[in-house]
């Protein structure tokens, strides 16, 4: 029995919740608002569970069920219907979104309780869940695009939640516009795909990809590159990441949900969903790997010198997503999704932990003003440490399994450079995460007197515990080494199956038609060469644990043993304040892009429009009035002048005859 017709319920619940809260929020009082708000994600979670179970009974080989609700746009042969798709990939994402989403909803009841427009916050949060689910469950590019922009819109609302603060509004607008730049590239990719395939449905496009796109052809590279730029916009990678650190202006649960677990991973989900297209464009894969690795390293370095607790976590998110793109770049899509899931758990837990600290220290975010909070925040401390160990990648915790798998694939499928970037990133990650832990929880207490930190209520600590537990056992999803134990891999295999062999032969045939014969034999040979030997993998694992421990040790040495060392070290160093101010990237972009556009358009308006085009129009009017002024001067009123003109006219006539 197919439960697919329940699919539309999943996005529907948060939508209904958002509408109820949105319009009747004030009237129904805070308690009912929180009930309605939490009911949405939890119900969706339940339905997702049902769908998950139903997918197991799904017969092998047959295409996954889709539910198309109604035809959305139909123009000639371009017919797009509003359809939802249930397949393992979307289910995994739905589990993460609804699961982590509902935990964060429960958490934010406690966190946001004393806010005035409480209902507005939950309306936006539910709307966010609705758009994210649409993005994840859409069965064609357009529905995904609705979710894509909807998610951008809700992040704009939520970042700009405290709309009195100018910084929050600016951050919101910045987030939306940078996302919009990404959407610009995504839109172009959609047009390209439609032009190549004639349809936008995932199933048909992915199936037809090997036969229509020519391997490593210019069209394939362009489309996939545009898709990737779209993904970087949304998932805050190198060129378009500047909006994420500023997005910390929003309330902390928002950062947890949007900027850790769900929205930023949308880009990764999209790349994995279009894996068939990306496999056909090795150049783009290389770019993705490089950008991913680069971002991982780059963001990690910035993270080491931030003093705002949420900014550190923001940069660590960028860096972790860099890892996921690194995995996609080398073709290890399952590793990317695995890291995405584990990252959602421990990063959400970290953010919520930070939230409870900020909540307890009445909105103090600067870690230099914290210290020795270990005994003030017992539960938060324990969950925070568990997640930090997980992110650092120590053995039993989930972070280790997912990150190690990425590093392994980076080395095997990619090359040493990727692996080098990954491993140094891991070292720095361990360093700055534990720097954060030591500065906030251990060491002398720099808390200023009138702030008396207190542990958060049950509503906030329970989610922390659940998430910490998930961060602990998350690794079970993908145990390496032993064949068949990698649950996630087996679960996603049917969706991500890609036969390079047939694709290359098809491309050769198509190129042959166009007359130039190339053989992809050596590409095929190179792809199949990598064998899977156990010993190499174990040594790699041990090496990465060692690197993580070294990171922790250096952090311990710097911040516990000799607390004054970082201060002394950072004073004179030129490099340090470069990194401290985020390599001046924001200022650079402001100077290079924003100011010229603003000045240019101002110039355009005042000069080109007001004086130029308008000038021409008014000029025409003035010239006409000038002529009439000249003509008027002939009427001088002196009889003699008139006689003169008569005589002159008469004489001219005479001469002419």
């Amino acid at each position, binding site marked *: 029995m197919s439960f697919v017709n329940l699919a539309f319920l999943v996005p529907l619940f948060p939508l209904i919740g958002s509408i109820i809260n949105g319009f009747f929020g004030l009237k129904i009082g805070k308690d009912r608002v929180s009930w309605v708000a939490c009911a949405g994600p939890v119900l969706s979670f339940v339905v997702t569970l049902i769908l998950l179970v139903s997918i197991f009974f799904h017969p092998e080989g047959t295409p996954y069920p889709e539910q198309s609700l109604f035809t959305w746009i139909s123009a000639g042969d371009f017919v797009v219907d509003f359809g939802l798709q249930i397949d393992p990939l979307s289910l995994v994402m739905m589990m993460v979104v609804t699961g982590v989403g509902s935990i964060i909803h429960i958490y934010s009841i406690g966190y946001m309780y004393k806010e005035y427009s409480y209902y507005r916050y939950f309306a936006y949060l539910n709307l966010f869940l609705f758009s994210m689910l649409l993005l994840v469950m859409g069965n064609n590019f357009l529905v995904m695009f609705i979710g894509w922009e909807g998610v951008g819109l809700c992040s704009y609302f939520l970042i700009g939640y405290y709309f009195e603060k100018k910084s929050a509004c600016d951050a919101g607008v910045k987030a939306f516009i940078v996302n919009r730049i990404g959407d610009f590239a995504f839109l172009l990719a959609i047009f390209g795909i439609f032009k190549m395939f004639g349809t936008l449905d995932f199933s048909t496009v992915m199936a037809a990809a090997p036969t229509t796109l020519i391997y490593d052809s210019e069209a394939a590279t362009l489309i996939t590159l545009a898709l990737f730029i779209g993904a970087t916009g949304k998932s805050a990678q190198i060129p378009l990441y500047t909006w994420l650190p500023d997005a910390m202006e929003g309330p902390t649960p928002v950062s947890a949900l949007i900027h850790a677990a769900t929205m930023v991973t949308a880009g990764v989900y999209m790349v994995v969903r279009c894996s068939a297209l990306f496999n056909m464009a090795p150049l783009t894969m290389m770019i993705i790997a490089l950008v991913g690795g680069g971002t991982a390293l780059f963001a990690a370095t910035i993270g080491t010198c931030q003093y705002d607790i949420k900014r550190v976590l923001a940069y660590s998110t960028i860096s972790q997503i860099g890892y996921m793109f690194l995995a996609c770049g080398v073709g290890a899509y399952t590793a990317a999704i695995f890291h995405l899931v584990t990252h959602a758990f421990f990063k959400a837990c970290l953010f919520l932990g930070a939230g409870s600290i900020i909540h307890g220290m009445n909105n103090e975010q600067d870690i230099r003003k914290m210290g020795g909070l270990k005994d003030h925040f017992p539960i938060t401390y324990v969950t925070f440490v568990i997640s930090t160990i997980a992110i650092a990648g120590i053995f039993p915790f989930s972070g280790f399994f997912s990150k190690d798998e990425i590093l392994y694939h980076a080395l095997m499928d990619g090359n040493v450079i990727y692996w080098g970037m990954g491993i140094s990133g891991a070292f720095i990650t361990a360093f700055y995460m534990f720097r954060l832990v030591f500065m906030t929880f251990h060491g002398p207490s720099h808390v200023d007197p009138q702030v008396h930190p207190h542990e958060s209520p049950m509503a906030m600590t329970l989610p922390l515990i659940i998430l910490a537990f998930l961060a602990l056992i998350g690794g079970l999803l993908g145990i390496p080494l032993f064949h068949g134990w990698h649950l996630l891999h087996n679960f996603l295999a049917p969706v991500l199956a890609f036969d390079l062999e047939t694709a290359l032969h098809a491309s050769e045939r198509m190129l042959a038609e166009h007359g130039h014969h190339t053989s992809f034999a050596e590409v095929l040979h190179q792809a199949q060469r990598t064998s899977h030997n156990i010993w190499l993998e174990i040594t790699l694992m041990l090496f990465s644990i060692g690197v993580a421990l070294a990171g922790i040790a250096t952090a311990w040495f710097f911040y516990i043993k000799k607390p004054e060392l970082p201060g002394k070290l950072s004073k004179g160093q030129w490099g340090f304040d470069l990194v401290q101010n985020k390599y001046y990237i924001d200022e650079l972009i402001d100077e290079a892009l924003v100011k010229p556009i603003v000045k240019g358009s101002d110039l355009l308006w005042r000069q080109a429009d007001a004086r130029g085009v308008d000038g021409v129009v008014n000029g025409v009017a003035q010239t006409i009035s000038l002529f009439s002024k000249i003509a008027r001067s002939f009427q*001088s*009123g002196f*009889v*003699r002048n008139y006689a003169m003109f008569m*005589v002159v006219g008469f004489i001219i006539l005479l001469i002419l005859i």
Partner: protein
Amino acid sequence: MVPLTHYLILSATLFSIGVLGVLVRRNAIVVFMCIEIMLNAVNITLIAFDRYLNQHDGQIFSFMVICVAGAEVSVGLAIVIALFRNKPTVNLDELNLMKW
């Protein structure tokens, strides 16, 4: 016999003197006189052609010209007197109210 061209030359000179007078002089009365000169110049040509072509039309026409000249002078001078009443000058330069 006096050739016709002499008469025409005479008439042309008188006519141009009349026109110059109109253009140069500022006194309204003198302008009227110059107009009279121009009219007389016209009469000379009429009669000269009349004499040459042996017809009487020219003379009739100059007769009409004299009538018109008479009427014109009387009305013109009446206007000048009327103008003189509201502004004690006959100088054409000051009479420039009639303009658009």
